[in-house]
């Protein structure tokens, strides 16, 4: 009996069009870019892909651009976390902060937001930020391209809305118009999978509040009641005047915790996760409000 070690070829398209064609021909192929998730699975024997679709040579994937009159950052699927930290800290501060918490420098040099999305782990570091920013995922196949709202993207643990013939081409993240925060709890001070994480986006221009919760449910979650409560509380105070008292921060944190549906696992108990989310929600809001108060009227308008 012969065991085929790798039945398919190693696919290395150099153009996006080529990648689309190969994707449609080999729907079972595992796309690989940074490889920081897939190679771990292969090394642990959890994944044995017959075919790899290597996207690292695809022209233009590793760059970002401002679109929509500078209101949105379109981040190519091959842009590394390191590039996000170095180049997007102003336009996407929470995303850059989340990128800082990813793995080690070597992992950040290889890993990408698109890879994070395609793996769709509930613990993916970027996901809470993408939720808080109402990001869109630009996906494409030979059938055409479409934008998936981030709220529709995550379907379950490691399951997402990507069709078998589709690839993520870019992630569209609205540029920050106000304070953003990202915080992540783990039992080590670096290089740790989130026990829980939380992102907050005060969209001053849109007068709305965005949130995202990581590692506390089958998918990344949005804390809708917390968003609504804070929008109401901020009502006419988006210019930073008037101030918001600590009880709002506390209430906000509690609503964030309520939105979570965590489990007990090796990284922490459900009870601890809820507790930590309440703390993160409260603290992130207090920092964001301090930042909001520090903004001048023009920027906040």
């Amino acid at each position, binding site marked *: *009996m*012969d*065991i085929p*070690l790798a039945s398919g070829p190693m696919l290395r398209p150099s153009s996006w069009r080529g990648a689309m064609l190969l994707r449609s021909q080999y729907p079972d192929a595992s796309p690989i870019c940074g490889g920081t998730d897939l190679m*771990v699975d292969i*090394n*642990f*024997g959890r994944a044995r892909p017959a075919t790899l679709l290597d996207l690292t040579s695809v022209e233009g994937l590793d760059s970002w651009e401002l679109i929509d009159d500078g209101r949105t950052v379109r981040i190519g699927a091959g842009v590394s976390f390191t590039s996000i930290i170095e180049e997007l800290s102003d336009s996407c501060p929470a995303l850059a*902060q989340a990128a*800082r*918490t990813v793995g*080690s420098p070597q992992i950040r040099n290889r890993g990408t937001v698109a890879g994070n999305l395609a793996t769709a782990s509930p613990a993916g570091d970027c996901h809470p930020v993408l939720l808080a920013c109402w990001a869109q995922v630009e996906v494409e196949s030979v059938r055409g391209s479409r934008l998936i709202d981030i709220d529709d993207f995550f379907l379950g643990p490691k399951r997402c809305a990507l069709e078998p013939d589709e690839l993520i081409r870019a992630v569209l993240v609205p540029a920050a118009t106000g304070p953003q*925060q*990202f*915080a*992540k*709890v*783990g*039992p*080590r*001070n*670096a*290089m*740790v*999978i989130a*026990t829980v*994480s939380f992102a907050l986006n005060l969209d001053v221009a849109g007068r709305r509040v965005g949130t995202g919760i990581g590692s506390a449910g089958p998918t990344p979650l949005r804390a809708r009641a917390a968003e609504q409560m804070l929008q109401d509380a901020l009502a006419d105070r988006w210019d930073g005047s008037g101030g918001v008292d600590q009880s709002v921060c*506390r*209430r906000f*944190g*509690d609503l964030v*915790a*309520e939105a*979570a549906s965590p489990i007990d696992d*090796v*990284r*922490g*108990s459900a*009870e*601890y996760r*809820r*507790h*930590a*989310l*309440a*703390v*993160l929600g*409260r*603290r992130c809001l207090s*920092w964001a409000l301090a930042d909001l108060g520090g903004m001048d009227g023009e920027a906040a308008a």
Partner: protein
Amino acid sequence: MTVTETPTRITTPSVVDGVGASATRPDGVPKVDGSFIYSSDEYHDGSLWGVTLRSPHPRARVLAIDTSQATGIDGVRCVLTHRDVPGSKTYGMKVYDEPVLAFDEVRYQGEPVAVVAATHPEIARRACELIVVDYEELVPNTDPEMSLTGQVEGLFGGGLARHVRIRHGDVATARALADVVVEGRYEMGTQDPAFLGPESGLAVPLGDGGVELYVSCQNLHLDQQQVADCLGLPLDKVRLVLSGVGGAFGGKEDLNVHIHACLLALRTGRPVRMVYSREESFFGHVHRHPAIADIELGATRDGRLVFTKVRLVLDGGAYTSTSQVVIANGCYFAAGAYDVANVEIDGFATYTNNPPCGAMRGFGAVQSCYAIESAMDRLAGELGLHPLELRMRNAIGEGDVLPTGQPVDGPAPVQEILAYLRDLPLPAGADHEAADMRTRPGGVGNVTRGEGIRRGVGYALGMKAIGFSGGMDDTCTARVTVWIRDGEPVAEVYCAGPELGQGVVTLEAQIARTELGVRTVELRDKDTDIAESGASSASRQSWMTAGAVVGACGLVRDEILARAAAVLGRPAGELTLDGPEIHDPAGHPLVPVAEVLGPESVSHAFTYRHRPTEPVDDERGQGNAHVAFAYAAHRAIVDVDVELGLVKVVEMATAQDVGKAMNPAGVEGQIEGGTVQGLGLAVMEELQITGGRIRNPSFTDYLIPTMLDVPPMPMKIFEFPHPDSPYGLNGVGEPPNLSSTPAILNALRDATGLELPRAPVRPSDLITEPPVEGAGPE
């Protein structure tokens, strides 16, 4: 060949990179630039790959094993089970109870059941999946308290591996003298050695029916014996060569790939490589024993200990490994580095169906130090004394008698060690709002700007024996050869003492330079062709290797001087050897060594022994069991976020007596490394085991400290010469691992006011200020 006393030493001052210098490690640059050959890099033309099939169950009867499908795979060269083990079916460091391959029952999750050799590792892995093992699953016994009964069916000894009793003075009577008594139960989870270089090796079959094994291990000769016994071969048909070891910490004292690789190589007639994956490695080596310690301390109002009572339970898991010795060592030092007249210690090592535990840096004394040092802080609190003051009032000193009845000899500078920590200024409090987030609890997670942070300070003191205790005849042999190359003497040192990363190879060269004045020293590969060196364990290898190398150098020097004496017609006693020249008593050169030796070489072996020890008795645990003692203490500074339970260890100050800093940079490295391993055990390192199953066998979820978790370590290295050892050195590697963990626990207790009865602490253990319990509105 055996000579028992060390020849006189001559130290040549002109030597560069001799003893006492921070000489560069010979393996340093290759390890940094990637050219170093680790055991996982060993290859041989035409080698096959060996892979192990392991039990998925913590306990099951093995009813049948069907290898027919696996054997039929293209590329598979052989599939072996217990039926193919020609010699002893079991092996072990102290007791042969661990099956080479399971034959009747599997007793822990991950126990090897079959091995496959194939042309490609992936073929071998897939062939393993096609081996059909018919298991009858049994309920695993995983509670060590149950095992204490010695009545548990299905476990060796009914579950009890050893009960150690130590009785010193009279605790019952002493109770009346105690003004204050404190009690506590302290638990410790299972730490993994977490070496970065996984178990691996290459077995090469030899034409004469023998086999050569290149492997990473801690004791070539003990391994050789076990391998030969299981292969059914005489010792001279099994040759072991030390390959590059990527860390061990005790976890490579037991065999791993050894017998399997040799069996496959002998069966196929081809060289066989084996390399455990990271996940497999967690199942492929022993762990630090998890512990439960009940401790009771009685003291007078002015803080003098009057009695110490300890009950220590260490769970050894499925097989014996070194459990019986680990529990003894844990008990020897369970009363800490304190002078206390009345002591009762009962230590138990158990068998269960948990993963096997054995040697790990500190060897039982880590667990007992954690317990006694935790209890000492509780006592200090009860007495209203500063924890350091309580320790200084009771610190052991030279001449004090240990609970085992042995008087402490050699330097015991515990007061000096504690005084250093007392006098060291505290670091400034951090301005958390201004500081880089990496300096705060939670690090890059950006979870606090100062909210909830409390600072704590904690101290701990540790003591441990250096070298093998309890009457073991412990030897180390080295051969030194000198010859002339390009007009200059060159020395070769040959000794089997394994280099694990601790730097013994650096010392071998430093010693030869110092003793012979040579500039060039070559180190021969370590193998079993020379007599044994004993294990690189028990903080003993520098001491033992130094003894052997100094001795061999002395014999070589004596012969060179005797030859020079004959050439010069002067008495050898007037001559000295200084590098390339023979000198007269005034230091004037008389004749080049090159001229004395010509084309000949001078070569001598020397076998070193430390002073004899004796076993302790079974009834009261009394006996002069130890060669020497070493001491270290830590002061830990921590910041704790008491709302999230996250920790930043701010500083770990430490002081240790090393006798003689043979290589100061190496000593610092050992102290830093031991401290960090203890830090990991305090705040993050734990194998989570439920129902006998490891839940986190990966570096994703078994966390070890990163650069950001490791604080500055102000350090005082004392050099009080040890009277019995070469150069006055003392063992270094283990003591910093003892007091690090309890110092951090005590600092966390200071910061939070919590009892923290278990290490490592989890974030949820450290929360003192929940704004609300769980979720929900106020």
